C-alpha cells in the first residue's frame, strides 16, 4: 500500500499552482505517490481516480502535512 499525503498548502510558480488546482490538488485533499519514471522523475501521483505525472519541481510546490 502507498502512503497517503494530505495537502497543507502550496508554494511555487503561479501557473504550476493553477494547473495543480485544475488537477484537483486542493488544501486538505489527500493523494498518494505510486511511482517514479525513468531517471527518478516524473513522479506518478494518484489523486482520487486520477493519475498524474509530475516533475519534481511541480511536486515540490505541494506542501504536505507531516
Amino acid at each position, binding site marked *: 500500500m502507498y502512503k497517503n499525503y494530505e495537502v497543507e498548502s502550496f508554494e511555487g510558480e503561479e501557473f504550476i499552482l493553477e494547473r*495543480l*488546482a485544475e488537477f484537483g490538488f*486542493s488544501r486538505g485533499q489527500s493523494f498518494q505517490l*505510486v511511482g517514479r*519514471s*525513468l531517471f527518478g522523475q516524473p513522479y506518478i501521483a494518484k489523486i482520487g481516480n*486520477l493519475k498524474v505525472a509530475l516533475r519534481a519541481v511541480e511536486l515540490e510546490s505541494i506542501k504536505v502535512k507531516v
Partner: protein
Amino acid sequence: MKKVALVGPPNAGKTSLFNWLTGSNFKTVNYPGATVNFFRGDALEQYGFACEFIDTPGVYSLFPKSQDEEITQKILIGENSEVSPDQVIVVIDATQFERHLNIFHQVSALNIPTIVAVTMLDILKESGQSIDLNILSKELGVPVVGIDGLLGGGVQELMDSVAGRESEKSSQIEPEALQKWTQEIFTEFGLENNRLHKLSFIDCKSKRNWHHLKVTDKLDKFLLHPIFGLVFFVVVMSLLFTSIYSFSVPLMDFVDAGFSSLSQYILVAGEQSLWAQFLADGVVTGFGAFFIFVPQVAILFFGLILLEDTGYLARATTLVDRPLSLLGMNGRSFVPLLSGYACAVPAAMAARTITNKKERLLTLFVLPLMNCSARLPVYALLLTFFFTGKPMWYGGVALAAIYFLSIIVGALAALILRRFIKDSGQSLFMMELPLYRRPRIMPVLSQVLAKTKFFVRKAGPIIFALSLVIWVTSVFPNYEMTDDVQRLQSSYIAQAGHLMEPVFEPMGVDWRVGVGIISAFAAREVFVSALALVFNVTEENAIGGDGSEESVAATLLEKMKTAKLANGGLIFTPATIIGLIIFFMIALQCLATVGVIYQETNSVRFTVFQLVSFNVVAYLLAVGVQIFA
C-alpha cells in the same frame, strides 16, 4: 446554421462524441490567424437537425497555458465570429466528475447556452455507481445527457437537446468570467461539486470491482517501471517504425504505379508535346512525388492516435520527459520528434502542445534532424554503392548507425542551442495519465483521415510548386530538344549546377551531383532521379532493358563507379559517399518544412538561422570528410 462547440478536458471522450455527431463529415481547420487546428463538422442528417459542431482543443480550465488551450478560450469568448458558438456542450467524464465540473462552472459564467454530456458511465458502473442525470440536470439548471462513446447511445437525445435549447446568448461577457480562479475559488467550487456528487451519485450496495482502474494500476506497475517500461517503450516504438516503413510499401508502390501510368498515358495521348510533358512530368510527377509519402504519414497518424486512444501515449511521454528535459526539451517533445521520422511537416504542427516557448523552439529546431522517410531512397542508393559486393546486412547496420547518429546530432544541436534561446518562464510537464481503454477503431480512422487530409492541404501545395519549378528549370530553355539527357545538360538547373560547381567541388563532386543536390530542395528523394538523368540513365538504356526501377538503379550504380571529375579523379569515392550521407543527414533541404516552421514560429530570424546553420554545418562536415579522408 447554429454553431455548437464541444468543450472538455483531454481524454473526456469529446472527440469520440464529435465523431458520433458528425460521422466522417468533418475537417481539420486552423483558427483564423493562428496555427492551432481543430475539427469542424456538420451534424449527420439522421439526427434531424442541421447544425455545425466545433471540436475545441482539450482544456483543464478556461485559463490557458498552451496555444491549444488559448484557442478554446478564444472560441468561447467569441473573439472570431466565424467560430463563435451559439451553444456549448461541456463533455464531462463521469469517473472524474467533480474535477471536470469546474469547466462547466467556468463556461456557465460566459452566459452561453450550455448542455452537459456525461461520458464513461459504463466505466463508472464497474465501481457499482451511477449518476442520476435528472437530479444533476435540475441542480445545474441545464440539460444533462449520458453518452455511450462506444455504441453511440444518448447521441440522439443530445441532438434533441441541442435543437430544443435556446441559442440566445448574452452578448456581454462579465469580466470576472475571465478572471483566473484562485485557490479559494477552486475550494469553493470543490465544495459545490462535492455536494453535487453526493446528490446525484447513486451507490449500489453490492459494489463490484472497478475493472478499468485495477487493470490500469497493474499495467502501470509494468509500463511505467524504469526498466521494464523502457523495454516495452522500445518495443512499441520499434513496432511503430516497422509499421511505417513496411506496411506503407504496397501503398507507396500503388501510388507510384498510379502516377507513373497516368504520366505515361498523358505523354502518349499528348504525343510528347511540351504541354503533355508539362502535365506528365511536371504536374503529375510533382503530385506523385508528394503523394508517395502520404501512406507513411497516414500510418504514423494511425499509430499515434491509436496509442493515444489506449492511454499509452501519455505514459510514453512521461517515460522520456527526464531525458528530453536534460536536453532542454519536454516529454511533450516526444510525439513531434517521433513524427519527424516520417515527415517533419506534421511533426512541426504537433509541437503546439508544448507550453514553454523555449522547449517548443528547441523541439522545432531539432525536428529536421530526425531522418524523415524522404531521405531513405538517398541513403539506399549511397549505401548500396558503398557496400557493393558486401553482405546485405552491412547496409542495414550502416542505416541503423545513420539513424542513431541523427539522434546524437539532434541532442548536440539542442544542447548548443538551449544556451542561445532566452528562458521563457518555468517549464510545465504535469500530465494526466488516463485509464487504459480498448481503442475505438472508427473514431481513430476518422481522425487519421482528417489529419491526413489536413497534411495534404498544408504541405502539398509547397512541394508541388517546388516540383514545378524544378521541372521548368530542368526543361528550359532548350525545351524543343528531344533527347532528355542533352536537354537537361543544357537546362537552367544544369547552368546553376555549373555556376555552383566551385561550391560543390570541395565536397568532391562535380556539377552533376550539384544538380542532384539542388533538385533535392523540392523533395530529397528527387536526388536519385535527378542523378539518373544527369548520368544519362533512362528506362530505355538501363541494364536488362526492362526499364524497371531496379534496372535503372543498377545502371546508375554502374555509371557512378566510373564517373569522373574534370581532373580525371573518381567522383564517388568512400569519402564522397560518407560526405554526401552526412550532408543529407543534416542539411535542411525540404522547403515545405521550412515553410511550416516559419508558420509555427512566426519568426523569420529563427527560420533563416535554422536554414542557414543546418546547410552550412552539413556542407562543412561534407567538405571536412573530403579533406581528412
